[in-house]
């Protein structure tokens, strides 16, 4: 299992379209990817659930990656988050 924290700096938070791109990126991997915000969590491969977390600027999320390709998946997702949000 791999896990990392990420703090959103994008003005609009994790909003619709980039969230869609994030889902696409997550779907490239076989591992299960879960996003935690406070006591709520969502599957990163599901757009509406992810948007439902309402992740805003300044908030910190925890991303947990579990599965056969977790190394690559965690690295790729972290990079994507940093570049996009």
């Amino acid at each position, binding site marked *: 299992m791999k896990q990392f924290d990420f703090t959103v*700096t994008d003005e*609009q938070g994790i909003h619709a379209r980039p969230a869609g791109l994030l*889902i696409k990126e997550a779907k490239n991997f076989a591992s299960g990817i879960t996003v935690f915000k406070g006591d709520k969590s969502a599957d990163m491969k*599901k*757009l*509406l659930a992810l*948007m*439902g977390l*309402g992740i805003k600027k300044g908030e910190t999320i925890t991303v947990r990656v579990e599965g056969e390709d977790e190394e690559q998946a965690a690295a790729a997702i972290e990079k994507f988050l940093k570049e996009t949000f």
Partner: protein
Amino acid sequence: MQVATGKSILNGIAIGKIKVYRAPETVISDRQIDDVEAEMARFEEARQKAIAQQNALYEKALAEAGEETAAVFEVHGMMLDDDDLVDAIREIIAKQRRTAEYAVRTACDNQAKIFAEMDDPYMQARSADIDDIGQSMLDFLTGADPNSLQGTEPSILVAKDLAPSETVRLDKSLLLGFVTREGSTNSHTAILARSMNIPALVQCGDVSADWDGKMAIIDGYNSCIYVDPTDDLFRSLKKKQEEDQAGVALLQELKGKDNTTIDGRTVKVYANIGGPSDIGAVQQNDAGGVGLFRTEFVYLNSRQEPGEEEQFEAYRHVLESLAPKQVIIRTCDIGADKTIDYMKLDHEDNPALGYRAIRICLTRKEFFKKQLRALLRASAYGNMGIMFPMIISVRELREAKEILAECRAELEAEGVKIGQYEIGTMIETPAAVLIADDLAKECDFFSIGTNDLTQYTCAIDRQNAKLEPFSDTHHPAVLREIQMTVEAGHRHGTWVGICGELGADTTLTETFLRMGVDELSVNPKSVLPLRKTIRGLNLSQNE
């Protein structure tokens, strides 16, 4: 005459007859079904058609309104493909043995409610997107045709609400503007209307079905609609509309064209901006770049000194949005008429000649370094220029550059990526003009700030209205200084621009071009009129 107010989403005027637009009511039966398989197949067919439709709308919006707006429909496509939503619908069909229509409506209503109850207005507005994709599937399931509601003559549509896909599907040749009772300025419908240049009001509570067929004017500038307007009002708003249309015509005529004179001399026409909110104006007016990005907003909009991170985000956003266009960012120019509490600047009797701009930055090095580090980090995201204001000596310029180099070394040691950038000096004092040769050796470009240069050259306080009879905006001394600056710059391969108000004065454009000015940076609205002037000049003819 009746007046109703709402929230305007575009500064524009629409004049025409009202057509009350009634979306068809989808009647949904909650009867039980026998053949679950068949119902599943109906749902899947409708879902696939809805995805195909959203893809087609993406293409249509891309052509009519551009990439950013079209992205709405890409998101809709992804929502239609969302596992949770699809599973919820299938479950209602299978377990509750209901029709596909009932399942779609129920699952979409639930999801829309989740968004509507979130505390972020942006997320709340997403419930309209869910309603939209739900309606799209329902239309395919029931065979309804939501088109053909527009009537046959160009009109102002009045509706309860309009979904983004309805807005894109509307025949633009019949759509003068629209007014909705609901909706929000954050909605994708609003964004679409804005990018398609359609005057519109949302949240206009007083819309009435009785308006059908009446003459009306949407005044987007004042966020209201006049139904049966008076003759006077009609005339004055008609005039305003014609002026707007002339502006649009100018844009269509000149957008994408070079700033080249008849005899082939090209000059850069850039825009002056005051913050990330001006990015749209730069793009809409087709400026070639930004010649002056005033960074005061980061200081003025803050109760305490803004941090490096906050500044970096703002600069990165502007650079990234406008790349590969050049964006020249002026370092902190506070002091004089722009004071800030947390800076704790002493009161001065003569602030224009006082402790301001680079003078503050060079004495409060840690404060200055925050901005320079933010700028250097942002440089990786676009085509940046850094410009130092109020320079009066070579020593100051060198010192500023040394601090910049120090920040660069720190960032490189931290492994931060830094892009290419040019360094420039603002020429806004007679002292800078007189030593322009020496300054030119130290930088890539000059930008002449004509407002301050005029004030300091003529000893005329810009803020004092009493001095107006003595002020001459075309003072020959200032024009001669501009000429000297251009010549000095060019002797050392330093390009020279003008970013003060004089740059937009089209009566001087020919003079500036003859002097050899390389760039004119003006407020975004002046970009196209200036381009028009430049394209009409012929410098090979005698003055």
